[in-house]
């Protein structure tokens, strides 16, 4: 579906992507993770033909990006955080414009609004929508065209948990319909829940790539047990026999409030791999 070979991209003197190799198979949800400024958006822009690149090769739907025809592009849905709406127009009119362009019947616009839960706001002008509603309208705009390939750049960033869940369901529905999804996110839980495969992008390279649980298991050597004591203290123990004895003792003393065994999640794996947190890579650079 998507294939990149030794892809490099630089802005002025800064190399943002240095040799990306990537292959995404049809029908899967692929998640690209990485700290802010890692080049996730840049990679999406290159794959969707919005940016040129220096060297390497990118194929989408089996063709070079520059060779995609109008018909090919009609099968590709793209939702970027910097994409806008016609503010004065209603939700339904916003969709109708693109229904006209893509040549899909208006019935699809209504279906799409229903699907994203905006049927009640169909006549509302886009400027009166809340952030979560806007995100859903944007999603309706790409879902309406029944894409074969869907790019979502941080589809849920800054949204409340309910809207987030809702959008997750829509994304999974797309997969069920045979759509291939390429998404980026900062949210590890989201990636673990949605993606068949994740790739971690750091400093221009893909440093790890596998199914989310596989990635976690691979770094499972950091299994730990966290205990919160009645005194308010937190302690962390290694997963070994000694820990068992200490826990027994604490328990019989009645000093344990809660106890967790912490499997490494994608977040901790990421920190281990890159030595930095996902959200604040830029800050770390300044520090």
């Amino acid at each position, binding site marked *: 579906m998507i294939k990149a070979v030794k892809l490099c991209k630089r802005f002025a003197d800064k190399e943002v992507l240095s040799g990306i190799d990537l292959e995404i198979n049809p029908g899967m949800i692929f998640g690209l993770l990485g700290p802010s400024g890692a080049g996730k958006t840049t990679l999406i822009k290159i794959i*969707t033909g*919005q940016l040129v690149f220096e060297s390497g090769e990118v194929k989408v739907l089996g063709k070079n990006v520059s060779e995609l025809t*109008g018909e090919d*592009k*009609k099968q590709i849905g*793209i939702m*970027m955080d*910097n*994409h*806008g*709406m*016609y*503010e*004065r*127009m209603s939700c339904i*009119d916003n969709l109708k*414009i*693109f229904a*006209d*362009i*893509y040549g899909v019947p208006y019935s699809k616009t209504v279906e799409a609004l229903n699907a994203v839960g905006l049927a009640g706001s169909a006549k509302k*002008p886009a400027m009166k929508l809340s952030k979560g509603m806007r995100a859903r309208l944007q999603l309706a*705009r790409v879902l309406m065209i029944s894409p074969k390939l869907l790019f979502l750049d941080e589809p849920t960033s800054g949204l409340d948990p309910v809207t987030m869940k809702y959008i997750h369901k829509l994304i999974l529905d797309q997969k069920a319909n045979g759509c291939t999804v390429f998404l980026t996110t900062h949210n590890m839980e989201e990636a673990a829940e949605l993606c068949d495969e994740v790739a971690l992008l750091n400093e221009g390279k893909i440093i790890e790539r596998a199914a989310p649980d596989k990635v976690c298991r691979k770094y499972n050597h950091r299994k730990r047990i966290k205990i919160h004591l009645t005194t308010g203290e937190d302690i962390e123990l290694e997963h070994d026999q000694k820990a068992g004895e200490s826990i027994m003792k604490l328990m019989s003393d009645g000093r344990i409030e809660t106890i967790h065994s912490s499997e490494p999640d994608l977040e901790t794996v990421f920190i281990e791999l890159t030595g930095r947190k996902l959200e604040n890579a830029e800050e770390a650079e300044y520090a």
Partner: protein
Amino acid sequence: MHNTLVIIKKQLKDTLKNKTVLIQFLLFPMLTLIFEHAISIPDMPELFFTKLFSVMYMGMAPLTAAAAIISEEKEKNTLRVLMMANVKPWEYLSGVGIYVWMICMAGAGVMSTSLPASDIPFYLGVMAVGFLISIAAGACVGIFAPNQMVSTSMVMPVMLVLSFAPMLAMFNDKIEKAAGIFYTQQIRLLLNNMTFDGIKPECFVTVAVNAALAVILFFAAFRKKGLE
């Protein structure tokens, strides 16, 4: 071609909602109707307001409308979405151009109601050409400006010069001469005459040069900036 029609349709839907642009479209046609019917000053040349306001309309409405529409679309990042939907830049620009032209022609139609019926075809023909030049100039600004603020401040001086030159030209010969380099002043002379007979060749040359300049600037702006 299909996409051009979609853009025109989208703009038509937006017409009543987009107050800033709507005012531009309505102002002079309404002023004309009011002034022609309500005010009569002795010794005033016949159809004075219709002719003056027509050229002011030409220098203002298409220019500001085209610039505002394109720059807003850039500022709000909707143009990007259109491009991703495989709308070609020329399809978009011609859609906006045709739309502005149509609305302005409707405005000119309203303004022509005071004219004798026999003058109307000449009047509309001349206005049609003038609008095209203004639209090219406006689109040029729209392409150049990254957002509406910049667009407004770039359009303002051009618009003032183009639309007020014909009015100021009435005050003295010097200004009239200077104003003569602009197509709006030349078109005003044409409208005063209401026929091509007896018009000096300079007039056509000036209009042609203005038109060529607008078109060249338009393509230069487009080549330099594209629609991003």
